[in-house]
């Protein structure tokens, strides 16, 4: 097994002294697409925020490309190649699509010209709407912008938190296909939190199941083919 791109050991984190993550151990190899599933409130989004650096780890470690990153500020982790597409998308609402992408490209080293084709190629709608205020885009378009905004920074790992939330099913499928295609073409590693069974089955090569702040099971590609098994892990 090659060295993992991302690995956590005994990761703990929470809000204001209230623990949410109770010791998460996971490892993701370069080029994988891994889903994180589980019921509401088991800590999936908290895990994402903690990996990105928006929530400090209270104990345990996060290794990215073999180096410890749990002590780094979020912007330093982003510059190492961790891209984050949050739940609710968080586009900059009063800025144009183009300016949103500029922010995504700002982490590139000085002198490297941003390549906006990285976003426009997979998501042509962004080119069409580049002068439009991001807050006026539809949910699906905002999701594409949030992903495109990360892509222009050339990440090695993309963390997506519920990419299907609040988006019409046809667009969800299209975004799923685009991400899988991107993974095939560029080898970018993807870890995503999801409740949508179809999107999980369309994208994930394997999956972690979370419960009460821990990883409690791992599903292989074959397990993911079993709709009922996956549905049981998603159910309340």
């Amino acid at each position, binding site marked *: 097994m090659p060295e993992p791109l991302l690995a956590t050991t005994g990761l703990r984190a929470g809000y204001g002294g209230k623990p949410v993550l109770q010791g998460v151990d996971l490892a993701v190899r370069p080029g994988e697409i891994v889903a994180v599933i589980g019921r509401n409130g088991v800590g999936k989004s908290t895990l994402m925020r903690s990996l990105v650096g928006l929530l400090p780890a209270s104990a345990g470690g996060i290794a990215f490309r073999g180096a410890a990153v749990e002590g780094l*500020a*979020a912007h330093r982790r982003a510059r190492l190649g961790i891209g984050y597409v949050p739940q609710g998308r968080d*586009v900059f609402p*009063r800025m144009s699509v183009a300016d949103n992408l500029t*922010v995504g490209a700002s982490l590139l080293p000085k002198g490297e010209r941003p390549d906006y084709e990285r976003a426009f190629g997979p998501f042509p709608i962004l080119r069409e709407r580049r002068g439009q205020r991001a807050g006026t885009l539809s949910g699906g378009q905002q999701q594409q912008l949030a992903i495109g905004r990360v892509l222009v920074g050339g990440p090695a790992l993309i963390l997506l938190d519920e990419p299907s939330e609040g988006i019409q099913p046809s667009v969800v499928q299209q975004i799923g296909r685009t991400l899988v295609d991107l993974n095939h073409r560029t080898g970018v590693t993807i870890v995503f939190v999801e409740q949508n069974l179809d999107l999980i089955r369309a994208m994930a090569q394997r999956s972690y199941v979370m419960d009460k702040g821990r990883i409690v099971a791992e599903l292989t590609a074959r397990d993911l083919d079993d709709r009922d098994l996956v549905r049981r892990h998603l159910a309340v």
Partner: protein
Amino acid sequence: MDLLTHAFTFLYQIGDAFSFLVLSACGLAVVFGMMGVINLAHGELIMCGAYVTAASTRAGLPLPLGILAGALAAGAVGMVMERLVIRHLYGRPLDTIVATWGISLAATQGTLILLGSSMPGIGTPLGSFTVGGYSYSTYRVVLMVAAVAVLAGLYLAFNATRFGTLARATIQVPHMAEALGVDTRTVYALTFGLGAALAGLAGGLYAPTMTIVPTMGTTFIMEAFVTVVVGGADIFLGTAPAALVLGTVRALLTTWQGQLFGQIGLLVAVILVIRVLPRGISGLILRERA
């Protein structure tokens, strides 16, 4: 006095009130309007700019360079203030009010103790010009041009530069900017520093027209806050039109009934606008809901 002269006097007074409001408020519009930091020491940053400008001009520096020195000094003081105090209080407005009020008092009294109750002025340059038998200060016209130039400069800084894009992103969704690789602490520090430098610029520009005393900040701060509150969060759609509206009200009432009524009218206008438009003028233009 014929009609044209009347019209000119009136326009001159509107311009004068407008430039005063724009210049005193633009730094605060950045710090309070954009960043949401209530900086009660804004007036003391203006005072700092005035003192440095007056001191360096008296030491032989040409006035424009003296004004620049005032702006840079206030900007540097602002960055230090952000690093030591403001940074620890983001998202805690009440604590920020108390802390910056404390800074304001300490700065006023400290200046009084160290530099005395007043500093010799530097005199208004450029003399005057005459229209229809009445004379007007040429320097006041320079101030009007400066106010417009500052607005244009800020527009370019926030909309046409990389820093401006990152600053707007940081102010709109801070955690997302951070997660995209923006060093948001540095952006906040620089933005606060910019606001402080604009305050210093206002102090420097008005230094030749005022008595330079430690409490001079209070002359500016009330007008600065009401202009920003009436304007709302956007400098260009808010602060500038607010300064124009309030400046016109003040000029009208001052011409009609004198300075005191000008001041009262300004405050009444503020109360009326806030009653009708809780998000200020830019809130109306951007159709933000209260």
